[in-house]
């Protein structure tokens, strides 16, 4: 398992994804600094068209849309990163344990994974959001609980194959401890899988966050792209298409596209069999 760095950087999808991801990351980090106004400030004239003071206009509650947008991006990105990392951590731990120890540990973890995979995460999240009204980060972690199974399956498969590989067997024969093998052989080898898994889960988490916000399941004062779309949609009969509805739609699309392209680019480079090859049978 080897990612050729030059190859990766030449792939257009990866580069596009990277640019988008970096751009949004930048915005997420600097959000508050870049926002011209406090997004909760309801003092502006409602549903105003864009002008020099409000580049994207004002929403129905009298809040500056641009500022809202910046904070919303931040929330979505944060949610995605947190959930993705948590899912990655859980998935890698479970996959490694299942693949390395095998036996009852493996059986238990995989059964657990199967059950978790059957449950529609969104429903549980909705249930939790409706009943308990938790902090968003709790929901992010809850989502991770449903997201780790797919990662763990991939990691487990790779661990199984590495466990029987010759270089690991040689190390074991030389007297290496399990921890050493984990550290020196297994963990580094699967690095590309982490990237791909993280990208996929972060993508899904951001998508979930937008969906949940769209359905109104977060605290109404929390800024989110989904929530903005939901509100804007109510005023479809007014001329808010370009400045209120499109920007969050566009941002959400670009954000998710960026992460998707990153994942696609990585997958393509990781699997050399997908490229064109001149056959050379002999």
């Amino acid at each position, binding site marked *: 398992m080897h990612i050729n760095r030059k190859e990766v950087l030449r792939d257009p999808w990866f580069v596009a994804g990277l640019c988008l991801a970096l751009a949004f990351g930048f915005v997420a980090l600097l959000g508050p600094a870049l926002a011209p106004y406090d997004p909760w400030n309801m003092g502006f004239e409602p549903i105003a068209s864009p002008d020099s003071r409000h580049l994207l206009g004002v929403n129905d509650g009298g809040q500056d849309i641009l500022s809202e947008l910046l904070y919303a991006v931040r929330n979505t990105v944060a949610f995605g990163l947190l959930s993705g990392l948590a899912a990655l951590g859980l998935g890698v731990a479970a996959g490694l344990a299942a693949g390395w120890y095998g036996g009852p540990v493996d059986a238990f973890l995989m059964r657990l994974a199967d059950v978790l995979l059957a449950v529609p995460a969104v429903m549980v999240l909705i249930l939790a959001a409706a009943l308990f009204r938790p902090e968003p980060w709790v929901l992010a972690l809850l989502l991770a609980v449903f997201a780790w199974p797919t990662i763990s399956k991939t990691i487990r498969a790779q661990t199984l194959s590495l466990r029987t590989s010759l270089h690991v067997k040689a190390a074991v024969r030389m007297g290496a401890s399990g921890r050493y093998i984990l550290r020196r052989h297994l963990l580094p080898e699967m690095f590309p899988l982490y990237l791909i898994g993280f990208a996929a889960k972060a993508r899904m988490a951001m998508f979930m966050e937008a969906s949940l916000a769209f359905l109104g399941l977060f605290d109404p004062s929390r800024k989110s792209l989904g929530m903005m779309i939901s509100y804007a949609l109510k005023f479809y009969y007014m001329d808010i298409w370009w400045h209120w509805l499109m920007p969050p739609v566009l941002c959400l699309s670009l954000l998710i596209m960026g992460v998707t392209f990153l994942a696609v680019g990585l997958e393509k480079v990781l699997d050399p069999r997908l490229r064109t090859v*001149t*056959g*050379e*049978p*002999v």
Partner: protein
Amino acid sequence: MTLTVDRLRVIYRDGDHGILALDEVSLVLEPGRCLALVGESGSGKTTLGMACMGLLPESAEVRGRILLSGQELDTADEAAMNRVRWSDLSMVFQNGAANLNPLHRIVDQVAEPLIHQGNMGRRPALDRAAEALVSVGLEPHLHRRYPHQLSGGQVQRALLAMAGVLDPAVLILDEPTSALDALSKGIVARVIREAVARGKAVLLITHDLEFAVHQADHMAVLYLGQVLETLPPEDLLSRPLHPYTLALGRSYPSMDTVRDLGGIRGDAFYRLVHRHGTENGEHSVHSHIQIPGSSHRDGHAPPTGCLFQNRCTQAVPACSSGRIPLEEVEGHGVRCLRHGIVNLMELHNVTKAYDNVPAVKGVDLEIKAGEILALVGETGSGKTTLAMTAAGALRQDQGQRFFDGQDMDGWIARDYRSLARRVGVIYQNPSESVSHRFTVFDAVAEPLRIHGFGKNRSERTDQVRRVLSDVHLSTDPAFLERYPHELNMGAIQRVCLARALVLSPVFLAADEPTSSLDPSVQAKVMKLLLELQTERGLTMLFVTHDIGLARKISDRIAVMLAGRIVELGPASAIMKDPRHPYTRLLLESASGRHVEPRIGESDAGDVDGCAFAPRCPSRLDRCLTERPLLQPQSGRKVACHASGPAE
């Protein structure tokens, strides 16, 4: 139907570059005959099979023609090829089970062509398929299995059945026996024989020389996309005419070969092709890029001329120019500038006596380039004299000697040194052959000094170091300053070997080089000699009294008795089936069985009749009066009236 391949050229394209896989290969597959196409990886043999079926990838450029019974096949036209595929010519591919769809049952896959090409109904097609499977030894209960449920041998047989199901006129088999058990190999062999008997044309592509020799009617040896030799199969191991064929036979472990395996020095390479403008759309062949990681010794192949020259044991400068055609030489087709393996050394009727005691009497001998000839005989048989005469150290009384085609007497008279440079000699007593006053360095550098090579001490040191490392001796300055007599016998012999090789000779005469060594040391030196012969492409004359030792190192053996050669032939033939009673005696002694010789005197000088007659258990009356001449007999030459197959 006859399948004719006419000047087929295939280049695999990758952007501006390409790899030349087949270079104007022409073959004819006649009905009722099996042609074996033999070669190693990179030779292009699979490409040839695929080209005939029209299965090369789109990126492959194909020139030349493929004709089926005179009709040209347009391999680019899928529809036309589909009409011909499987019904007229079919192929069994490499890779066993991977050639079958893992999701379809065996019998379905065998029946599939019958249904789709043969327009048979499903029921009759399945029945016919079942028959075909049974005929290759797969019983009915296996028919409804999936590929992963069959063993490798069973899969191969199923593939065979599938290939024959539409009764094609041409059958191509690509490595049908790799990794197969004996039973399945036997069935493959039977299928080939039956196909040939029924008039099919069979192309057997393989690197399994043994199998090819037994199944084929005719053979072609492929190297880097060119046919280097075509020959009857029985000649492959006993009478190859191309240096590559000889080396290939030597590299192959078979039950008949006796000497240790040798490889071929250097590496094969890819033939890269570049586009050069658009002259007439032709692109010329251009560099030969070596496969990375190859050894440094072999140098680079020049862009024209013989493809094998950088690994050949008899290449001359002329080999690198022009294109060498395939010509007929002694019944084989050979592509070699020098018309096949040349004789590096030829001795005609050589006679030498010491003080009126004849040592060598009228000996005719050729030593082929790149081979190891063992000269075996008892003490006093004249073998050392013969060897030294061949090496140019002694002058014969009568007869002629030729080295690389030139008369040695004239050469020696003109310029002995230039001949001496090309010949290396190592002796029976290593420590005696080196002056006690010389250091290791002095000993090994001596030839350099004598011939004036190396402008200064440091250049000479470099050369000495290089050759010392070739014989696996230390190159430390400390070692160079040691005295050979301080070293153990094996090391001294290696120093002598280094000395003999420092000028890169083409011929090495080794006179009982290991007789005074301990067995374990002897073994190491023997291995070293074999390794050097492979690496440097040396031709060797190895003198020994121990036929058991000879068998481990030689391609051919010459048995000497009382100054004459009594048996001469391929080592495997002589070891398996010695014809001369003396050879049998030597073998029996070597194996520890001592046969009581007939009571009689040992051979005396110039008697009439056979020198072995007094001791010979198979002696006839005429043996005492009429000296037998060296006659060809079952693959070798024997000088005996009573010889025949051993009882």
